[in-house]
């Protein structure tokens, strides 16, 4: 038992959920968007045996990476260096921010154009750069929209999915000079494009994420649909790529299954419009490409995740977002309710591990364990089992050292309740006594009792039967062998 009951800490998700649930526009936006994404994905994987075999290859490729991660990271570093890419290691977010800032300052960069990167969201890089007088502009349309709105992404693939057309039209009318209110998607996109075009050409540096880094060849693979990723990584003279230490593959041969799984799972696309493969800076005689390429590898708690055989599978994630698209909880509360960078099922297992069970310990409980995410995960992450494991770690006596903040949610009352439950169901006499009591008096329990009150907000009170199945089975001769 921990020194003090701390069950009330880290309940941000639980506190924020009702606000989201009471916002009908937000609910409708997510419901509509997730329904569309689910049906598009289903159409891509209509052939079940093909899905099974593709998924097995994808999962195996990522499992192979995790089985030899340290060695592959070294190989990646060696290959990148040989190719002329400068490699940086950052154990923490402040370290990563300092590295990026230093590279930019050394190059005298004042403006940055960014491709989409969730690692940069983890780092809150834009704020950090702004504080040092460097302006970073998001070039992914969704990211551009939320940057205009001053918001955080609500989805890892579609960052502004919480907004509908009218909301975006109002935002653009307010923030883009000369553009009136229009809900015409082409006009809105054209306005954003016009705003961004000049920025690509003028930016001193481009910053991007990485979907897959190939250890065998030192190749950085980026998938995208808007061409902004390609522009951000080729037009400016300096390119900085940011990636978590888990996002690599062993060889080029691992890419085809993963490149087939990622867009189909994410947006229901057969393939993305752009697949960028970056292996080196501009070479003598080449007409385009950055003169300098840097790769920043961020740990930020991932090594600790890697250290546990079961939790390690969290790091297979290829960030497709299918788990959130199919999550009945995410689709109702939206991404911002999770507060941290990664929402939905993958966030529920990743955030508590990166941030600690003491500050995000309610997230593993924000699931019915319905397994909808497990069913669609293209790399077979056992999300439900990991959720349960994190629940276990959050109440582990003494805390344990598998997960930061272990034991943070242990409480004397809950422990006592499960002990009583154990007694009832592991001692038949106690079970008989409890059943006798509940069938006779259970219906007298008042609705205002804490758990019943929660239950009866939208449901009637469950009614105990007059006789238990145990009693009836005995009466009808089912208990005799």
């Amino acid at each position: 038992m921990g020194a003090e009951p701390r069950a009330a800490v880290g309940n941000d998700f639980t506190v924020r959920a009702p606000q989201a649930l009471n916002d009908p526009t937000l609910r409708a936006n997510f419901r509509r968007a997730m329904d569309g994404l689910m049906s598009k994905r289903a159409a891509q994987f209509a052939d079940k045996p093909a899905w099974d075999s593709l998924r097995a290859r994808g999962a195996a490729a990522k499992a192979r990476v995790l089985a030899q991660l340290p060695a592959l990271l070294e190989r990646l570093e060696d290959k990148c260096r040989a190719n002329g890419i400068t490699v940086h290691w950052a154990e923490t977010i402040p370290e990563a921010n300092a590295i990026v800032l230093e590279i930019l300052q050394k190059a005298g960069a004042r403006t940055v154009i960014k491709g989409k990167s969730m690692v940069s969201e983890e780092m809150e890089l834009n704020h950090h750069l702004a504080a040092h007088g460097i302006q970073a502009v998001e070039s992914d349309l969704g990211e551009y929209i939320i940057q205009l709105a001053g918001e955080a992404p609500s989805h890892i693939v579609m960052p502004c999915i919480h907004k509908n057309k009218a909301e975006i039209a109002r935002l653009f009318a307010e923030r883009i000079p000369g553009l009136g209110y229009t809900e015409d998607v082409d006009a809105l996109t054209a306005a954003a494009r016009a705003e961004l075009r000049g920025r690509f050409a003028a930016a001193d540096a481009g910053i991007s994420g990485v979907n897959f880094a190939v250890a065998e060849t030192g190749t950085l693979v980026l998938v995208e649909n808007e061409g902004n990723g390609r522009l951000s990584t080729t037009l400016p003279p300096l390119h900085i790529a940011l990636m978590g230490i888990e996002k690599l593959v062993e060889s080029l041969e691992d890419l085809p299954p993963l490149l087939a799984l990622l867009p189909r799972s994410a947006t229901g696309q057969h393939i993305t419009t752009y697949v960028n493969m970056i292996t080196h800076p501009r070479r003598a005689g080449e007409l385009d490409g950055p003169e300098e390429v840097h790769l920043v590898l961020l740990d930020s708690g991932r090594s600790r995740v890697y250290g546990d055989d079961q939790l390690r599978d969290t790091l297979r994630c290829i960030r497709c977002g299918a788990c959130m698209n199919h999550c009945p909880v995410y689709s109702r509360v939206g991404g911002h309710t999770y507060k941290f960078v990664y929402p939905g099922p993958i966030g529920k297992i990743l955030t508590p591990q990166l941030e600690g069970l003491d500050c995000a310990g309610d997230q593993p409980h924000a699931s019915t364990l319905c397994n909808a995410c497990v069913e669609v995960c293209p790399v077979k992450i056992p999300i439900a089992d990991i959720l349960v494991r994190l629940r276990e770690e959050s109440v582990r006596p003494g805390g344990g050292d598998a997960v930061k903040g272990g034991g943070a949610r242990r409480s004397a009352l809950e422990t006592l309740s499960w002990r009583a439950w154990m007694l009832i169901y592991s001692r038949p006499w106690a079970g008989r006594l409890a059943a006798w009591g509940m069938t006779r008096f259970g219906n007298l329990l008042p609705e205002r009792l804490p758990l019943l009150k929660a239950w009866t907000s939208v449901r009637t009170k469950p009614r105990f039967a007059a006789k238990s199945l145990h009693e009836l089975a005995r009466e009808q001769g089912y208990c005799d062998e």
Partner: protein
Amino acid sequence: MAQPATDVRLQSKPERVYYFGTCVIDLFYPGAGLAGMELLRREGVQVVFPPDQGCCGQPARNSGYMDEARAVALRQMAAFPNDWPIVVPSGSCAGMMKTHYPDLFKGRPEYERAVAFSARVHELTAFLVNVLRIKLEDKGPPVTVTWHGSCHSMREMGVVDEPKSLLRQLANVTLVENPREKECCGFGGTFSVRQPEISAAMVTDKIAALEETGAARVVSGDCGCLMNIGGALEKAGKSMRPQHIAEFLLERGHGR
């Protein structure tokens, strides 16, 4: 994803089966429990209900209380000593026993026992269809029903079509499928009280989707879901009636 292991010994009809009634059925829906046993008995199988059984242990396991879950799981394993199939009228409890008992005892001396035990576990409707190849007679009046598949039945036990094939055998029953059948009803055991607002939103959406089918009844193989859905239907004053599939099938055979 767990796939139901085919029990090689069950190519033909067993003489005797064990019945695990589940704690929710025991206290709240004993009629559903009895109906399942009656369906099995009618097929010429002797049904044994060991009186020392209780709960599968899922509530503690899902809450992270593994020692408590293990103690209860061991008690269940002891309550079913003979090598007979164990039929469970709940996909969720069956899923716990089939897929999670081995995990609970991984690296422990009881592991082999847990694996052997889990191989004997069958969900009721899958057992009726795949092992007993039951043929149903319908003596009831015409009725329209919809099916609610539980998440664990579908995604842990791999039982998706079996219960619907049973409903389709009934001549006077029209099955209208819910386009959102695969979406969770929001029960989730302790989830319903740990995240009451989200659970409430989910079950409210669920009963709206069920109502859209126009069915008079919602039939399911899991009493946890039925308690959630049925309670919400009743609180909202809806006329749709929730019913466990075992009770429904038995009723149809009796012409009620």
